[in-house]
């Protein structure tokens, strides 16, 4: 006779989470085809996360835009009830402020996980921009430098996975100071990038202790090899 446990005898624990904050440049220079493709890419990403049976329960996503100001357009929470409005372009590029806000949100999210007994992987921060920051070295308070000091330490201590994506005609100068991985986006291949991102999240979500995950090949959206 086979002995079978009843479902009520088992613990049901929350899935380990991977918190991901995406900081997107929506400055005036992103107007036109770039913002249209960005919107398509973000929608594809969120749909892909929901369709994957692993990432649906593990990915914890927040989105910040930086244009007229730094704005939280999607907060961490239930991925199944995401409602994201179309992003519009305009204003300057307060990238430093956006990265600082992203770091604060990720830190707060980790505190919530700890409080609720939820295990989590290293947070991810993705920064996408097509130009120089307007709250950087030319300003009285250099927020880019302040952000770079924090991100580079976190990356060095392996407490943050950081991906900086240069949208044409942007340059790498400021993004290099953040540390982490850096890559130029081929043209407006936002959809390809976000597809790669959803696949990467899936790889992380299935990793187990001692597994250093191998990211999928990024060649679909960049010329860089990681």
């Amino acid at each position, binding site marked *: 006779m086979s*002995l079978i446990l009843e479902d009520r005898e088992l613990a049901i624990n929350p899935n380990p989470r991977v918190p991901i904050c995406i900081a997107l440049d929506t400055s005036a220079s992103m107007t036109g085809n770039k913002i249209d493709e960005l919107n398509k890419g973000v929608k594809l990403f969120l749909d892909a996360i929901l369709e994957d049976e692993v990432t649906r329960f593990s990915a914890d996503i927040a989105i910040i835009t930086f244009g007229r100001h730094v704005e939280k357009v999607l907060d961490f929470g239930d991925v199944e009830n995401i409602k994201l409005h179309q992003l519009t372009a305009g204003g300057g590029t307060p990238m430093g402020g956006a990265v600082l806000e992203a770091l604060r949100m990720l830190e707060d999210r980790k505190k919530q996980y700890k409080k609720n007994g939820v295990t989590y992987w290293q947070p991810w921060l993705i920064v996408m921009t097509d130009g120089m920051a307007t709250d950087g070295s030319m300003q009285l308070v250099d927020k880019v430098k302040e952000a770079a000091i924090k991100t580079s330490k976190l990356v060095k201590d392996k407490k943050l996975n950081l991906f900086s994506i240069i949208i044409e005609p942007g340059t790498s100068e400021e993004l290099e100071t953040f540390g982490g991985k850096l890559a130029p986006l081929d043209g407006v291949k936002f959809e390809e990038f976000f597809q790669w991102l959803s696949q990467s999240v899936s790889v992380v979500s299935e990793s187990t202790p001692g597994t250093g995950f191998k990211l999928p090949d990024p060649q679909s959206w960049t010329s860089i090899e990681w």
Partner: protein
Amino acid sequence: MNLFRIAGATTIGSSHIKNGKPCQDKIYSKKYKHVAAIALADGAGSCSQSDLGAEICTRHIVDFLCNNFDKTYLLTEQEISEKINKSIKKPLEKMSVELNVSSKELSSTLLFVAVKGNKFIAGHIGDGLIGKFDESGSQILSLPENGEYANETYFITMPEADKYLRIYKDNLNSTLGFILMSDGSYESLFDTQKNILASANLTFFSWLIDKQNTIESLNKSIEDNLASKFTKQTTDDCSVILLSTKHIEGWLDTVLKITHLDNAEEWWEKLKNYLR
């Protein structure tokens, strides 16, 4: 008189099947010269020979404790940790030379319990959990030790493993048995929000002490439950191994104290059967 019973099983996780990796959880047990020992090891996911490392660790620690229980029990916990760490590194290093790989490729966690007479020695490095059963049901003996993140833990192959290898030794007193579980099984057997062991732990133990269940059928039942139920909660490998200890004196009093269980009468019937 000791009449130990031991049962356990492992099952491969869906992520291992998907990635063409073997099951990296291993269990091992032995009864030898009045000692009963059980061990469980979980090989590190990205390490190429960690399944072999886990196999080596479980066999080595069980043999070590069966052959050296008395001498080991006399040492302090720190001395035991250093001695075991030094001893277990030898077969791992030997295998790494044979395979021409770094010993890091054989990384695994390790959990174990050995019992002799009224004494036990237990040890734990990494994730997973050791539970024990006594008159009040199931208790935690050793919690997982992870880094901050879900994919970080400690392995016996680390150079300073003796700093992370936690040793427990004591008299059994009213302890009736032990359970070792890997981190995959932990997801189903430990409620992380209430910080308590799920009732399935006690159910597994009640099957073990019921002498009507052969060890072969128990191993199969545990395996079936891991494969059909535990794998719904995780994509990782799952494993458990249990040991029941027995001291004829004191058992009846102990059993009568188990009054809070819903199925206390059932427990009592099974225990009476076991004692016959």
